[in-house]
Each structure stands twice: as structure tokens, then as C-alpha cells.
């Protein structure tokens, strides 16, 4: 299991989801990916994308104008 980061700031929905999807596709099951966004919609969209694609949201938080989401890549 390894940790990865993705900067998805200053882009708007659905681009943070697309960037997350494309990054997750390069990772192994069990890897963790932390995505930082400025579009508050990501707080809904990335977890929704995780639910339907078999990934697990580990942690979400808001720090000022930033939304930080950590997910664990699933087997899919």
C-alpha cells in the first residue's frame, strides 16, 4: 500500500472526478490517494464516484476553501 497525492484545485466539476479517476486507474488496490480540490461539489462527486466504482472514501475534510478527500483504491 502506498500513499499518493493529487492536486485538483482551481478546476470545476467534473474535472476533479476525471483527474481522480485517471490517477486511480494507475494505482494498485489498497493504495491511498489524497485529492485536494477547491470546487466544493467535489465533496459530493468524488465520494459518489468512489461508491459506484468500488473505491472507499477514508477521510474527507474542509480546510478553508479547500476540500481534501482521501480514498482507498478498490479492486475494480
Amino acid at each position, binding site marked *: 500500500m502506498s500513499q499518493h497525492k493529487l492536486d485538483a484545485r*482551481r478546476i*470545476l*466539476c*467534473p*474535472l476533479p*472526478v*476525471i483527474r481522480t*479517476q*485517471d490517477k486511480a486507474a494507475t494505482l494498485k488496490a489498497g493504495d491511498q490517494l489524497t485529492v485536494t480540490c477547491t*470546487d*466544493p*461539489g467535489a*465533496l*459530493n*462527486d468524488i465520494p*459518489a*464516484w468512489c*461508491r*459506484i*466504482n*468500488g473505491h472507499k472514501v477514508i477521510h474527507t475534510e474542509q480546510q478553508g*476553501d479547500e476540500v481534501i478527500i482521501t480514498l482507498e483504491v478498490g479492486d*475494480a
Partner: protein
Amino acid sequence: MTQPKAISLISGGLDSMLATKVVMDQGVHVEGINFFTGFCVEGHTHAIRKRDQKKEKRNNALWCAEQLGIKLHIVDVIDEYKDVLLNPKHGYGANLNPCQDCKTFMIRKALEWIEKNGFDFIITGEVVGQRPMSQRKDLMPVIAHESGAGERLLRPLSAINLPETLPEREGWVRHDELLGFNGRNRKPQMALAAQYGFTDYATPAGGCCFLTDEKYSKKVVDMWEHRSSRDYELDDIMLLKVGRHIRPRPNFKMIIGREEGENKFMEGYRRQFISLHTTSHNGPLVLLDGKDISTDDVELASRIAARFGQGRSADSVTVQAVWPEGETRDFAVSPMPVHEIDESWYV
């Protein structure tokens, strides 16, 4: 027999959701695909504008996929889509919407996806006669042919009215369990939605694409007319969704934030454009988009910018101009009276 596999174009609207469900109920493994062109209405302006931030922000395509219990693949086609918009073989609709070419392009991309991923056919939620450009009965075979999908394209909601396709002939789906919807009447879709228990679905009044919007299309045309080429980058089409656009002179236009959310969004562009903000009074952030912008241009823009701030009635307003390289200069200006702002300047 192995379970047949289909990819369904999920727009986030009801029709694609129903079409997917109809095929899923026949035992086909379905996954969704959604293409992001840059012009999708989905959430952008809501995300930007402060006053909309209390509204629920959901991506309807993701939401539909979750309701259906299927995977969704969202594909960035921003660069490839330029050719569709700039050179539509079948022309534009009422505005800059190249609907027929757009549909053909998306089905072609879906075809590439199924060929790469070992899927069997493509599903769309198209209904014969529902839309004047892209869903006419005579155009549906043209779109199937020009996309390259041919008989691998199934339109489950109107399949009874259309020639048999490969999934029907191969027995992957049962033809008599498909539907014969026709025309603009939405009642059959709503009845089917009720039958499936879908009570919450997106009904975008103006469609899901900014290019169908008259005001947005005018801004795109204005941008092209004042540049040396009909081209665009993602930042261009994003900024066309934000603020008031005023072109007081041919060589530049002003993008004036309308509220806090837009100002904040535009902040991110201050390293690309000359920006203006009033320092003596509260006021909007303004970006100047153009070329060869002179000091005289900036002063004129400062007078207009002052008009849109709280100092609009003051004798003098201080406007600070910041160049992308970091140079700053203050202009003490009298706000331009409203009658001097020519209506034709508004883009």
C-alpha cells in the same frame, strides 16, 4: 452464452437512465460513459456563484449511475471536441450547438471505448422525433453510420420504430421488450420512470450544453471575432460562463465579477490577465482580456469598473490595476455614468 456487455451514454437526464434500465433488465451487463466537452452545464456555474452554493451540488450523470447501480466512466474530450465545434459537418442549430456532429462524435468515442474494453454494443437514450436536430428519424441511421457504430448502436426507447440492430439479431436483447417511444411528448418516459420507481431525475430546461444558450453562444462568437483564429482553450470557455462581459474597444473586453463567488473564481486568473479592483470602495474584480492593452484602455476600463462598485456615485474612485507580471498602478477616476456605457458594449 457469456453475458453481453454494453456501454450506455449517460447524460444525467431521464432518457439515458431509462434506456439503460430497459437493457439492464434484460440481463445485459451495462456500464455508463459520460463525455466532458467543457461546455457541459453540469454544476459549473453553481460551483462558482456564491449565491448558488447552498443548492445541492450533484453531478447528475454520477447520480444516475448510482441509482442504476452501474459504473460510470467520465471521459475528458475537451481537446478532441474542438474540431466538432469549429468544423461541424452538419452545421449548427439555433445557436452554436452542433448537435448532430456532437452526437456522432460521442457515439464514435463510445465505439472506441467498447472496442478497447471488449464490450459488445452501445446504448443511447435517443427518442425518435424528440429533438429537431439530432433525434430525427431520418438522421438516426446517418448518425449510426457516420459514427462507425452502425448496428452496434441500440436505442432502446425507440427500437420498435427503428431497423433491427446487432444486439436484437444476436438475441442479446429481446426486441419485443424494447420500446417504441416517438415524438416530443414526455408522458411515456414519465410513466416508465414511475414504473421503475425513479422519482427524482434531472430535467434541464435548456438542455445540458452551454452551446444551446443564445447569450453564451454570442460570447463565443465575440471571442472568435476579436482574435486572430477561431480557437479556444478550456480557460476561455470557463471564463465565458462567469461575470458581465463588456467590450468598450475592439482590442479588449472586461470580465466583471457579479458577486463574491465569481470574484473568487476570477482571482485564479490574475496571473494571466490585467486585473482591476477598486481600493477606495468595495467593488468587483475585473479582468481585461485582449491584446495591446494601453494605459488609456486601462483608464477607460477603470472608469467602467468603478461604475459597478459601491463608489458608483462618488466623484472619484481609486482603481488599482495589476499586470500579470506584478506591476501595479493606481488610477483615480470618475465612475462612468450609466448612459455613457453603450448597450452595444455588452457582449
